[in-house]
């Protein structure tokens, strides 16, 4: 038997260290080749690390939340020793061989002549970091539960598709259902709300959530934000959008985002200071000719910002298609590293939930961010009477160190004019 180390692989350009997000194995587990050992997280992408060997996990290189250097030991696996990759064999220290040899009893019990891999426990169910809800099974798969459990759930109005199963083959047990009842009854029952409550839930902030926390703290600590809120009459824009969508045929459906991208492209001609990075440590402002538009996107794991690169090269439908693809990739955790970095300006939209106004936090080192608020039909005074108009607020924040209030407001007024009279966006030379 040989003990070999599984190292943290080089997961992409420039990544020097990774954070352990999930362990799929524990010491003593039998693993097959290609079974998942752990999920690790780089700047924004999660990478799954498979086993190179079939054997028994000896120990783990760190706990969830700890950071490991690329090339460091992720975990060690005891295996039959054939087919070891030279690179990995080198990593095995002499001391480990001695350790194995000194425990002949253990070797005999854990290593049968032909280890029955079929008996290995399946990898533990993929768990997202605490506090992040996730579907307990692939969509469309019927939850597995005994008739009694199904009946109990139905009577309580619990959809078993949302209940994780802890039993064999993911079977939902009565105990799993107890947990759902416990979670539901706590805030509901008036009797229990009056009871004094003890205890605190401690949720480790790890993985993507820690990245988000770090970046938000950095932006808020360094950047003095000034936020400008303006209302925009989007009736004409919405009419245009509806007409184009009616005639789009096979092309992707247009959301507001491609129009915003187009309006920004137009506005940046007069306001190049907005499409910029402020490298505050070096005291340099980089104005970019290319527009790499970050689009803040909610995913099951938290906020990520996929980037529409060279937004200036896209038509409306082209942008719509690419944005949809990026958002989809981000939600499924499949976005590539380069698709999640390098933005020069960011748009944040909460869609129908978008509130009356927001105070967006700038995506450091950018100098401005555009927030889009909820659209609503409001009565507007046209001089003689109230008329119903589709109104939408935009809330933009600027880095007040490098953008003055006057610049901020003229930029917003320009954006407002373009959005209120969308024809201006597309009048290349006249506007």
């Amino acid at each position, binding site marked *: 038997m040989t003990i070999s180390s599984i190292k943290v692989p080089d997961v992409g350009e420039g990544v020097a260290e990774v954070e352990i997000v999930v362990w799929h194995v524990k010491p003593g587990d039998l693993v097959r080749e290609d079974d998942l050992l752990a999920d690790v997280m780089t700047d924004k992408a999660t990478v799954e690390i498979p086993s190179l060997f079939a054997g028994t996990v000896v120990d783990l290189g760190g706990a969830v939340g700890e950071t490991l250097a690329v090339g460091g030991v992720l975990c060690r696996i005891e295996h039959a020793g054939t087919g070891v990759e030279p690179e990995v064999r080198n990593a095995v220290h002499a001391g480990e061989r001695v350790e194995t040899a000194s425990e002949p009893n253990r070797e005999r019990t854990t290593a049968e002549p032909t280890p029955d891999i*079929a*008996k290995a426990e399946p990898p533990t169910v993929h768990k997202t970091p605490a506090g992040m809800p996730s579907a307990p099974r692939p969509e469309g798969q019927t939850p597995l539960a005994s008739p009694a459990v199904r009946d109990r759930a*139905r009577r309580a109005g619990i959809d078993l598709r949302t209940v994780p199963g802890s039993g*064999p083959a993911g079977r939902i047990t009565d105990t799993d259902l107890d947990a759902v009842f416990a979670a539901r009854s706590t805030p509901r029952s008036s009797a229990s709300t009056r009871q004094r409550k003890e205890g605190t839930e401690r949720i480790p902030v790890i993985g993507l959530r820690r990245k988000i926390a770090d970046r938000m703290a950095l932006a808020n600590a360094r950047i003095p934000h000034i936020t400008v809120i303006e209302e925009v009459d989007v009736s004409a824009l919405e009419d245009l959008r509806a007409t184009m969508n009616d005639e789009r045929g096979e092309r992707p459906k247009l959301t507001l985002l491609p129009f915003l991208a187009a309006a920004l492209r137009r506005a940046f001609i007069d306001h190049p200071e907005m499409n910029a990075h402020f490298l505050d440590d070096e005291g340099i402002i980089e104005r970019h000719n290319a527009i790499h538009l970050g689009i803040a996107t909610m995913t099951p794991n938290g906020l990520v910002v996929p980037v529409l690169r060279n937004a200036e090269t896209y038509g409306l439908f082209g942008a719509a298609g690419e944005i949809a693809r990026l958002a989809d990739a981000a939600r499924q955790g499949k976005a590539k590293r380069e698709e999640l970095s390098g933005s020069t300006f960011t748009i944040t939209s909460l869609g129908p939930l978008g509130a009356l106004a927001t105070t967006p936090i700038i995506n450091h080192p950018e100098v401005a961010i555009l927030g889009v608020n909820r659209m609503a039909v409001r009565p507007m005074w046209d001089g003689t009477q109230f008329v119903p108009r589709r109104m939408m607020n935009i809330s933009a924040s600027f880095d007040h160190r490098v953008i003055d209030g006057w610049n901020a407001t003229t930029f917003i007024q320009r954006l407002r004019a373009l959005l209120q009279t969308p024809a201006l966006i597309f009048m290349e030379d006249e506007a």
Partner: protein
Amino acid sequence: MTARACKVLIIGGGPGGYVAAIRAGQLGLDTVLVEQGAVGGTCLNVGCIPSKALIHTAEVFSDASALALDNPFGITSAAPQIDLARAVAWKDGIVSRLTGGVATLLRKARVNVLQGRAQIMDGKTVEVTATDGTVETLRCENLVIATGARAQTIPTLPFGGDILSSTEVLALETVPKRLCVVGGGYIGLEIGTAMAKLGAQVTIVEAAPQLLPLHDGDLIKPVAKRLAALNVQVLTEARAQNYADGQLEVMVGETRELIAADKVLVTVGRVPNIDGFGLESLGLDRNGRYLAIDGHCRTSMRGVYAVGDVTGEPMLAHRAMAQGDLVARVIAGEPVVWDKRAMPAVCFTDPEIVVVGQLPTQAGDAGVAIFPFAGNGRAMTRDRDDGFVRIVFTRESGLVLGIQAVGAGVSEMAGQFALALEMGATLTDIAATIQAHPTQSEAVQEAALKGLGMALHI
């Protein structure tokens, strides 16, 4: 003309209808059941129960006949004789006991049973013409269609005379000398086998390339072997044409054959009873030739439900009963839905076949573990070690997707197969459950162990 109102009106008193009625009555719903014949439907009167009585009679006779020959038990006996009329009378006794029992249960549940024929006027109104000719109009809040199915006919072989459906063949008072069975599904095979055991020269004509077209070859092999031993002639890819002068014309491929037959039994499927009583006027959605229903047995019209054979395959009494129970509880406002994982199906052939869940052919690259009765002590002591138990499972988690068995007496194992599937059992669950020794059920545990790579007795 009288008009009365009720909460639930059920048309058809078979397993689907009478169970719906009993449950509805128990739940306190004002329930009326309309049945033109005897309660119990096809199942009790002319189907499951009578055919099992005939099969048992045939088995007893066949066993006794075997004792007249050289046998391993050292028993000497004279060749037996049978008075089939007496066996039919015995069968009739069982049927009347059961239908009487159902009638009592309905009465105890305070269900109003109307003997007569229903005519649907609209989704809430039904006219019942009683056997004595009086007509009564009923207004109901909920209507349940449970009218079942009848034997499919072949235009060139209309029922009547020597051309029989399963109903008539189960009432025969003498064993036909030569019986030709058209249709090698489970009904044809069950009755054909029984008649062969009673001494008839049986020929089975099946249009598909194999008997029991819905089962896989492995399950059918032991049955085909036994049929051959009983001198039953099986013609596959054969189409029956005409019957005249005691001869059935059959096209086997391109060749025309004449088969001498005193009786012809036609069992080529069953058609739903959805015509002739005003159902068409409701314009309910169809699913092929059957009534379309949702997970609550609701049809496309609000307040109109359907259960049993009118809702399609599999046409099984226990499915109808489960639907009947469901419908009553849905109407009573209980939060129930059709969520069954397991639907056992048994062929009372010789040997018997039980199918629950997915066959290997339906389960993609799932694992399959087979344990033959040749390795089972109890099967040997019954002098029947043909057949096997087979478990189909997912390779990742060992979740049981299906269990099938073929062998003498395996019908009684259907329960544990269904329970395993309904509970979401894994191979480990079955392998870790102690089975009594010596029983045929040990083969189930052994098959599970084999699936885990830990078989003991193979």
